[in-house]
């Protein structure tokens, strides 16, 4: 020890002290006795250093998690929006499919008629209830004044024909150029003939004038094309009688017919004409 300087002597003493104390503490811990020195140091270290640091780390971790949650939320919102979009697309496709299936049934029923399937290409908002453009023209065999029908019934007449498109004048138009010959079948097998002349927008019904005004019709009777005077077959459903207007002599003056189909919205249609099916 004599050769050691002051610092070295202090260090040796400290080493001996710490070594002795530490060994004793280890021994005490192994005997499961209380260990106040070690515990105090551990608590001080934990309280002053580890706990604040762990808390700080947890804060960062929480912020990081929050960021991830935000990102997840964004992703899920995106997915949800896509799901909504898919749902809408699905419903649209489902409706189209139903429409096409119904049209197929109509086609099968029209054995003696000429028909062409078409889709609605254009429907201007300005002339929503007036005209539509369909995807069939003269190249497909469409001719002027052929009847256009959806799966629910007739909706209009072909007004202009181009090579691959046609313009259809809807029955709901304010200016119907051609009268449509219609008939109402009676229970006794006879039928009442009439002419569909115009559309009453206020009543949302076609105005039909009977050819024989003395005939009687009843509300709820079905109205169909008679096939007389037009380039279309008979029996295409037009609508249902919803009101009958009598004049002073109790003679039927006007029959109001509710359109068979919702003319406002359809995507597929059949162009039906007299003749042999193609």
């Amino acid at each position, binding site marked *: 020890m004599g050769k*050691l*300087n002051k*610092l*070295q002597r202090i*260090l*040796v003493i*400290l*080493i001996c002290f*710490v*070594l002795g104390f*530490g060994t004793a*503490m*280890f021994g005490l811990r192994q005997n499961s006795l209380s260990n106040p020195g070690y515990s105090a*140091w551990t608590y001080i*270290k934990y309280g002053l*250093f*580890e706990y604040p*640091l*762990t808390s700080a*780390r947890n804060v960062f971790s929480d912020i990081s998690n929050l960021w991830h949650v935000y990102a997840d939320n964004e992703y899920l919102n995106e997915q949800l929006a896509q799901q909504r979009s898919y749902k809408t697309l699905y419903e649209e496709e489902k409706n189209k499919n139903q429409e096409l299936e119904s049209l197929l049934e109509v086609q099968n029923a029209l054995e003696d008629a000429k028909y062409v399937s078409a889709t609605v290409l254009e429907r201007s908002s300005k002339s929503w209830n007036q005209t539509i453009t369909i995807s069939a023209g003269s190249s497909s065999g469409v001719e002027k004044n052929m009847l256009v029908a959806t799966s629910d019934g007739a909706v209009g007449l072909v007004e202009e024909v181009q090579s691959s498109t046609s313009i259809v004048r809807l029955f709901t138009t304010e200016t119907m150029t051609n009268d449509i010959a219609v008939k109402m079948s009676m229970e006794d097998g006879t039928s009442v003939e009439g002419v569909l002349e115009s559309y009453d927008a206020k009543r949302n019904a076609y105005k039909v004038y009977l050819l024989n005004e003395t005939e009687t019709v009843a509300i709820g009777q079905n109205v169909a094309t008679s096939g007389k005077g037009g380039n279309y077959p008979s029996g295409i459903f037009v609508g249902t009688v919803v009101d009958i207007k009598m004049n002073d002599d109790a003679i039927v003056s006007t029959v109001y017919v509710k359109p068979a189909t919702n003319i406002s919205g359809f995507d597929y249609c059949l162009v039906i004409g007299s003749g042999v099916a193609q």
Partner: protein
Amino acid sequence: MKLRNAFLIMILLALLDELFALWGAMDFTYQSFGWVPYLAFSGMYLIFFRWDWKTQLYLGAFIGLIYDFCFGGSFPVNFILYPLLLVEMSILKGFIQGDRVYRILTGCFSVFLLEVIPVLIAVSFKQLHISLVRWFVHQVVLTVLVNGVFMILIDGFVRDIENRNENKVS
């Protein structure tokens, strides 16, 4: 540097060791990359490498002992290795004293020894069963590199304090 300041820095670095160990817990299966902080050792080396070997021996033993009991919980590993590595560096004192690059490289080599010796002893006594290659790739390389970077920072800090003290004295 005053011994009091040196010890304060040592305590701070030991606490930083704990901080890094706490934040980046090692994967002892060595499946992922990791590193072990040896900031207290690096600080001790960079502060005391100019001192005479006998004082270094006692200082290393004392600091290693304190580190083992209060921070690392690894008695007697550091109690033995710290003084030995300090003495090893005191032998190279003339070589590393004037050149920072050699000083840092020698420090990195010491960190490497500090990391490797306990493991090799444990493996040779069959106390540890690990793939040495995987352990080396996943832990030792990064340990040496990261501690090397910290050593550059600590060296700059210590030299700055020493320069300020010298300026005050002069």
